[in-house]
């Protein structure tokens, strides 16, 4: 692999890791809320959260660009804070991949929390542990395999993200050129088949490793359920 290709792979991994870091806390809270909240309003929230899963990624990217572009107040606020523009930056890659991967994380957490016996939480409360203490001591540890599955899926999704990223982050060498964008660009050039093959093999290997991780997490979860 050439240095440029290694750079592309490392950037992809860095962005995918950042996606997990920024979305894990909101993802867990949202998944927990959707599992335990009784209000019918939760269906609206669930719909909004799930939307990127069914929207064409290019549409998601367009909506994000219209919301976070440098013409918008959000984009300007970001510029005030950081002195840089959000669009076409590594941050933009993280945002695009995080939004597209968020439903996978949330749904995984939601299902894991639904699998935690609510009566355990009631008993915890009656023993003097408050709502957040109960969440941290009972719900979260028991839902942990599902949380990890969700994180791994979001990571894998970030590695493969192209559509929304192409619109919000485009193809900037060293900043936003991840594996899918590099492959797409190489496909446009004649005689780059070897480079394409190398990147495709890397992409398949990384994604497969991530999915194996997710499978391991779900085995762990099942074993834990069975032991109860």
């Amino acid at each position, binding site marked *: 692999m050439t240095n440029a290709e290694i750079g592309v792979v490392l950037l992809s991994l860095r962005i995918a890791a950042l996606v997990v870091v920024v979305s894990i806390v909101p993802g867990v809270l949202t998944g927990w809320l959707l599992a335990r909240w009784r209000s019918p309003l939760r269906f609206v929230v669930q719909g909004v959260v799930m939307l990127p899963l069914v929207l064409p990624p290019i549409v998601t990217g367009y909506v994000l660009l219209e919301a976070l572009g440098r013409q918008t107040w959000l984009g300007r606020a970001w510029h005030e804070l950081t002195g840089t523009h959000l669009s076409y930056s590594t941050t933009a890659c993280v945002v695009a991949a995080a939004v597209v991967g968020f439903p996978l994380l949330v749904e995984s957490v939601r299902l894991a929390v639904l699998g935690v016996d609510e009566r355990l939480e009631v008993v915890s409360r009656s023993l003097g542990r408050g709502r957040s203490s109960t969440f941290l001591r009972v719900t979260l540890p028991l839902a942990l395999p599902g949380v990890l599955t969700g994180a791994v899926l979001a990571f894998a999704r970030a590695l493969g993200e192209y559509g929304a990223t192409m619109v919000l982050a*485009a*193809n900037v060498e060293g900043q936003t050129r991840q594996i899918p*964008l590099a492959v*797409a660009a190489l*496909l446009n*050039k004649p005689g780059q088949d070897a480079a394409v093959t190398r990147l495709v093999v890397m992409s398949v290997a990384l994604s497969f490793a991530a999915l194996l991780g997710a499978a391991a997490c779900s085995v762990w979860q099942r074993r834990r359920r069975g032991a109860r």
Partner: protein
Amino acid sequence: MARHGTTSDIARQIAVWAALLLASCGSGDEDGLVVYAAASLTDVAEKLVGGEGRVAVGASSALARQILEGAPADVFVSASNHWVDVVAGAGWAAGEPRVLARNRLVCIAATDSALVGVLPGDLAAALPPDARVAIADEGVPAGEYVRQSLAATGDLAALRPRLVGQADVRGVLAAVAGGHVDAGFVYRTDALASDRVVVLFELDPTTHAPVEIVGLALTAEGVELLATWSAVPARAILREAGFGVGHP
């Protein structure tokens, strides 16, 4: 046996619907010609083809790859000789390549841009510190021509950190028109198609390979269609869109 009768009725209905669906797919193929056109021809390709067929647009490079994979196109209209040569070299051509029109490359900005009036060599210096310039990706003809030109004039090194790669020229146009970037490089015809952008300057045509719109027939029907595009009405359509059309 009423029950048996009902079941076979349903089966027959399903069969009829399936046949209708399949027939509708098939008739679509036979209805007319399929023209693969470079993104820069998005607006004129429909007019040129008229009611005789359907148009698929994309980056010339992407279209060429699809044709090499066996996509059912009758005519390939490319923004570069290179991809026509690739397709013809692979044995897909049904006739000689034909230059239909010429195009120019321009640098554009939003209509209210402070860059209006900038000279070609001053662009990099005139850009605000965190400015971005959209360009078609490498491999896409527009991207290749522009990089070739910027390299020749010595501006590429200064602009490189500003460049934001887009999948095709229409992506560049959208980014500039939407105000998401400060400037961008597109074909003159693209700039004319949008009233939200202005041309800052034209790239010197001597600094890059000639931008030729090249048509290549891939089937016998394609040959006939392509021949009509050298006639006066087709040339008028191209000229109106801003293409350079030489004398026949």
